[in-house]
Every structure is written in structure tokens, then in C-alpha cells.
């Protein structure tokens, strides 16, 4: 991926630095989407979390929320381990760690889907609107990350990456960390306030 730039004779800067800055700028831009959704949550609903009908329990599932948060944070650990494994040429460990990240990401998305299915509020009311939008936009980022991890995993199995050339792995893992950090802001705003 990194080499096939035809007919270009760049002098000084190396492509990885350019790619990395491009990715950081992309995160900088994306962060505003999440910031605006987060602000909308407080603008419309303040600190309110609705209650289940006819009880004084909160309508969000605290156990499930905590569980998927832990799973997503663990997936960042496996992603990081996978990236450093490729940097040090330990390809087998790298393959397994990327696969573990994919599985954890899918479990997280499944948890969100379960929360949607069992939710005690509808998308037609304001809390439901912000809850489904925020978790939905975030989960779609998780899923796109899973797809990119899948592509990278297949290429890794075919032996494409080594100590010198592993930018696609690093790029996807950076994206994965970014999506995790977003959840670190979303989780308290939706479950804990």
C-alpha cells in the first residue's frame, strides 16, 4: 500500500508521516461530529435519564452498559498489542490480536444491538432520539473499524506486513483507539450522569 505511488519523486518527507498527519486531521474533524451530538444530548435532555414505566429504575441497562464499555476498552489493548507485535516482527501474535480485536468489536456492536432491542424508550421521544443517534453513529464507526480490521487481517495472513511496512495496521489501530476514546465520552453522558 505504501509503495505504489507512481511517477512521484518526493524529496524529503516520508509517506508514513504524511499519512499519519492526514489521519490525525481526520480524527480532529470527526471529533466535532461527536462533540455536537454530545452537546445535543445536554441541550435537549439536560442530565435526564428516563425511568422505566411504572417503576423507579432507570430505563438504560447499567450492567450491559458497563459490560460493553469494558469489552471495548479491552479491544483497544488487543489492538495495541497487535500493532506492536507487527512492529517487532511477531506476526503470529499480531494475527491473533487483530482477530481478537475484531471479535471484541463485534461483541460490543452486538451489545448495542441488544440494548436497542430491549430499550424502555422509543426513538420518538427526545431521550430515545439522542440515545439511538449517539450509539448508532458510534456503532457504525465501530463496524467500519471492524471491516477495515478484517481487510488488514486478511492481508496480514497473506504476509503483506513486516517490521518496516505495517502502516495499514497502524492506521486502522489508530482509528480504533479514536473510536474508543469517543465512547469514553459517550458512555458517561448516556448512562452515568
Amino acid at each position, binding site marked *: *500500500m505504501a509503495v*505504489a505511488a*507512481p*511517477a*512521484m*519523486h*518526493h*524529496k524529503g*518527507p516520508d509517506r508514513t*508521516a*504524511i499519512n499519519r*498527519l*492526514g489521519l490525525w*486531521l*481526520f480524527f*480532529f*474533524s*470527526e471529533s*466535532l*461530529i461527536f462533540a*455536537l*451530538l454530545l452537546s*445535543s444530548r445536554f*441541550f*435537549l*435532555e439536560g442530565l435526564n435519564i428516563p425511568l422505566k414505566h411504572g417503576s423507579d429504575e432507570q430505563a438504560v441497562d447499567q450492567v450491559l452498559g458497563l459490560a460493553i464499555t469494558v469489552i471495548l476498552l479491552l479491544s483497544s489493548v488487543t489492538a495495541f498489542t497487535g500493532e506492536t507485535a507487527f512492529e517487532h516482527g511477531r506476526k503470529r501474535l499480531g494475527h491473533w490480536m487483530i482477530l481478537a480485536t475484531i471479535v471484541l468489536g463485534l461483541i460490543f456492536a452486538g451489545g448495542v444491538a441488544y440494548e436497542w432491542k430491549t430499550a424502555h424508550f422509543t*426513538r*420518538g*421521544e*427526545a*431521550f*430515545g*432520539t439522542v440515545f*439511538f*443517534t449517539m450509539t448508532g453513529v458510534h456503532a457504525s464507526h465501530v463496524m467500519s473499524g471492524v471491516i477495515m480490521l478484517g*481487510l488488514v487481517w*486478511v*492481508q496480514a495472513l*497473506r504476509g*503483506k506486513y513486516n517490521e518496516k511496512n505495517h502502516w495499514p495496521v497502524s492506521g486502522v489501530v489508530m482509528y480504533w483507539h479514536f473510536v474508543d476514546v469517543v465512547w469514553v465520552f459517550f458512555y458517561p453522558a448516556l448512562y452515568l450522569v
Partner: protein
Amino acid sequence: MYAATTVLGGTGTGLMGFYLGLGFAMVMRKLFGYPDLWERDLCLSVGYVFGLVGWVLGIGLWGQWAREWFGMKTYANGAQGWQRYFTFCTDHKVIGIQYMVWFVVVFLAAGFMAMLMRVELAQSGMQFFNHDQYNAVMSLHGILMVAVAIAAVIGGFGNYAVPLMIGADDMAFPRLNALTFWLVPPVGIMLLATPFLGGLEAGWTAYPPLAVQTESAQTLFNLALMTFGLVSILGGLNFIVTVIYLRAEGMTWSRLPIFVWAMFLTAILALFYTQGIFVALFMVLLDRIGGMSFFNEANGGDPLLYQHVFWFYSHPAVYIMVLPGFGVALELLTHFSRKPLFAYRYAVGGLIGIVGLSGVVWAHHMFTSGMPNYLHPPFLVATELISIPTGLVFLAGLGTIWMGRVWLQTPMLFALAVLFNFACGGVTGIFLADVPTDIHLQDTYFVVAHFHYTIVGGEIFALFGGIYYWFPKMTGRMYNERLGKIHFWMMFIGFNVTFFIMHLPGIQGMNRRIADYPSEFDNINMVISIAAFFLGSSFLVFFYNIIWSWFRGPAAAANPWRARTLEWQTSSPPPHDNFESPPVIKGHPYDYGVPGSVHATFPMGAAHAPAGGGGGGGGGGGG
């Protein structure tokens, strides 16, 4: 026919994607147990997204880029000559011209709509349109012109001139650049299709609750604009990385041409704030097709949320429009005054100051919206503060002309007009930034006149100045100077008469966006309409001049303006890699009249020329 297969292939895969999306949406509705499979706006939205993906894949994303994500070999783009302009070409010069031609055509279409509006508005009562048609044309004129104002200078001159001016051979992400451009045609075609698919009712700002409740083509409008937001974001990202990493040796930040500075700062605004309109339109879309309640007061939503999110982007957006205009104007003023740019560092500081303040003034669009009163003073003060950095830029322009040897060619006339028009726009802006006067003037033609003075007067005049200035570089041919000057004077007079007079009915309370008005405004509106037709006819002169010169004009020299910046130190048009040998920057770009000063040298040029002489330098020798 590489061009035809590319465009037709992209259209084919786009249509396939569209129908695939329709089918996907209906299958999903079946699986989730909805009684009716067809829900117009929802199914068409999914179809649009799939169709857009199909279109960009077919146009070249798949063959030239995406294949390598799956470990396959990519194809090279084999198009030559004019056919490059209809393919997924990664050359920044081709992409710049693609943007320019596309947006000049859209500009003429949207300008024609303004002419139709002035036909209707020439007299009170309804003669030419019915109300729905007027709303559709008014909304479309607004949004298309906003698109032109945002992307014509950035996409056109930014892509064409920035890599040349910093001595790079291309942008940092050439394939991303091509992808970004090819997202634009669907946006334009979808927007132009809206009158035939139900029209638009909510204006270019698309406020809910109307935008949520209307049965018109609002969903398509939202999807098209969200795609356009993607164009801004990806384009901005590319410019920032290019300017940071690909400057030639010796091109320090304090030697950067002012246009590059303006583009760099604009790119930061575009990259960050454009997500605001993306989110605002996305929320409306969710309310429309997803049954959500962001803006439905009855269920706990709040329409004011839209205005906050929308203007959080759309106020910085006017700086996305006007900063590149300032950059072009200052660039032209210094080249055609044959003097160093006055107070270069203060001008750059002014541009940075505008970028810094642009994000904290948005609610001055909302003084009458019903937001809390305590928000009025801070936004009033922040808005007025912007006149300080703007003033720095303005004074840099004036100081540059002062005692200069002003060379009144067509580009210079446009640059001088930018100073004049933007001064008028700035003065009228004060009344709109002050809460007491704004409450009176809100939603009147005074706002329309002010906005056109700043954006048309400040940016579109710079755009045309830039077109004349870079035309010889882009096409290798010279435009007709006499026709250029005729175009300028017609446009300048027509513009100022139209929009200066438009302030007056505005002060008396004539409402904007409404097709009819009290008959006491008949005479003054007739005058405005006649002046507007005169303004519109000036573009026929422009069009004729540009088309004729592109095919039949005399060959242009490499540096017809004797300018010092780098893009003029190579042939017209430049070879594929821009420079025969990499430039090394030795001094400031604008040191006109400073003895012994040099901007750039080509140290390998002499040794390199014989070996690389066959590589495309023929045009340079001809100059």
C-alpha cells in the same frame, strides 16, 4: 474512448448501486416486520448512499485505489489530453480545472435562476411563477451559489495554484483529491433535479420544523449537501497536509505566498466546522426518515438546536468563502502594484485572527430566534471584534496600492473592486451585528444586500479576477483584454446598482424570500430588476471571451504578468510534474523593486534541462 467509458461506467455502477440500495432497504423493512415495504424518503435515501458509493467506485476509485485494499494490483489511468478531464485523474492541475469549469457552469445556472427571480419580483403580485415555483428557484439559487462560493476558489485555484506556489509536484494525497472532485457532480445533478422531484420549500438554510414536515425534495437536498460537506472536509484535509509537508526547500512559513496562507487557514475552517452542517442536516434527515424527535417540540425536541448547530458551521462558512477571496485579492494587488505586499505579517495575523474568531460568533444569526437574551451581548461583541483582523487584511491591501505603480489590467480591476465592495459590505454588517438594528432589519432585503456585498463583492469578484489572472497559466492562451475590461465594468456597475438600491426597500421592511410584496415597492424593484439583468448580461461577455480565448486566443508567455511567485516560473501550462527541476526558495515572493532579491532558483535546472528537455517543456520554450 477512455473518457466515455469512465463516465458511462461510473453512471452504470451508480445506477446499479441505487437499485441495490432500494432493494436492500425494502428487504430490511421486510425483516424488521414493517407492514409496507416502500417508504419513499427512507428507501430513496438508502438508494442514494449505495448509488453514490457505486458511482465513485465505478469512476475510478475501484480500479485505481480500492483494489489494493483487497491485495490486488491497481490500474494506471491511461487517459491523455482532454480525456483526462473526464477520468479519475490525480494531477492537481487537471482537478483544479475540473472544479473551475464545473463551478463556472453551476454559477451561470444559479445566476440564471436569479434572473428568473428578478423577473417575478419586477412587479408586485404574481406574474411569472406560482409560490411553490418561486420557493424552489429561490432555494436552489441560494444553495447552488453557496456551493460555488465555498468550492470554486478552493477547489479551482486552490488545487491548481497551491502546489505550484509552494514548489510541490502534486498534492499530498492525489488519489483522495480525485475522489473528492468526483463527489461533486452527483451533488450538482441531484440539486438541479430537485425542481422536478417536488421542489424545495425551506430555503438554503432548511430550518426545521418546515424542513422536517415538508413533502418536497428536502431529503434529496440534505443528502446532496451532506455529500458536499464531505468534499469540503476531505479537500481541507488534503490542503493542510500539502502545505505542511510538501513545501519546497527554503519555503519557510514567512515566505509563503499570501494566497497559500489564506488557503491553509481556510482549509482548517473547512476541515473542522463543516461537520456542523453535516450533523445539522443529518438530524433533519433522522427526523424525516427515522421518526426521531430532535426538532419536534411536542416530544421534547427543540428547533433552536438546529439553528445553533447549523450556524456553528454556516458562520465560519462565510470565512471559508471569503478568506480565499482575500488571498487572491492581496496576491493580485501586490503583483499589479509592483510593490512588496504591505505589512505581510500583519495580513497573515489578520487572517489567523479571523479564523480564531469565526467560531464564536454564530448566534448573531439568531438574535430574533427566541434564544436566551443573555446570549445577545457576548455574540454582539465577538462579532464586532472580527472587524479588527479584517481591518488588518484590508489595510494591507490599501497599503500595497499606496504609491505603487498600479497596472490596471483586468485582474487588478477586479482586485480593486474587492476592496471597494467589501468595505460597503463591512459597513452594512455593523447594523446587522448590533442587536437593536438587527431586530428591525432581520429577514429583510437589507440582509440580502449585505450578504451579496460581502460574498459576491468580496469573493466572486476575486474569483473572476483570479480566473483572468491564472487563465494564461491554466490554458496556455491569453484572454482578450478589451472584452475582459468590458466584463469588469458591466459587472461592477450592475452589481453596485442592484445591491446598493436593494438596501432601501430592506430598511423599509420588504421581506426577503417572499415572492410578493406591497405595491408601494413597485418602482424601486423595477429598477433593481433592470440593474440585475444588466449584471447578468455581463457574464455573457465573460463566457464568450473565455470560450473563444481557450480555443482561439494567442499563445500565452510563461510569465505574462512578470510575477515573482513560483507558478509563473514554469511553462504555461506547466508540465506534468510542474517543474523541470525542483525549485529552491531564496527570498520573499513579493520583493518587487528590491535590488538583488530573488524568490526562487532552480539549481539543478541547467544540468537537468538537456536530459529532461523532452519531458514536456515544449510549452516553456514557446513562451
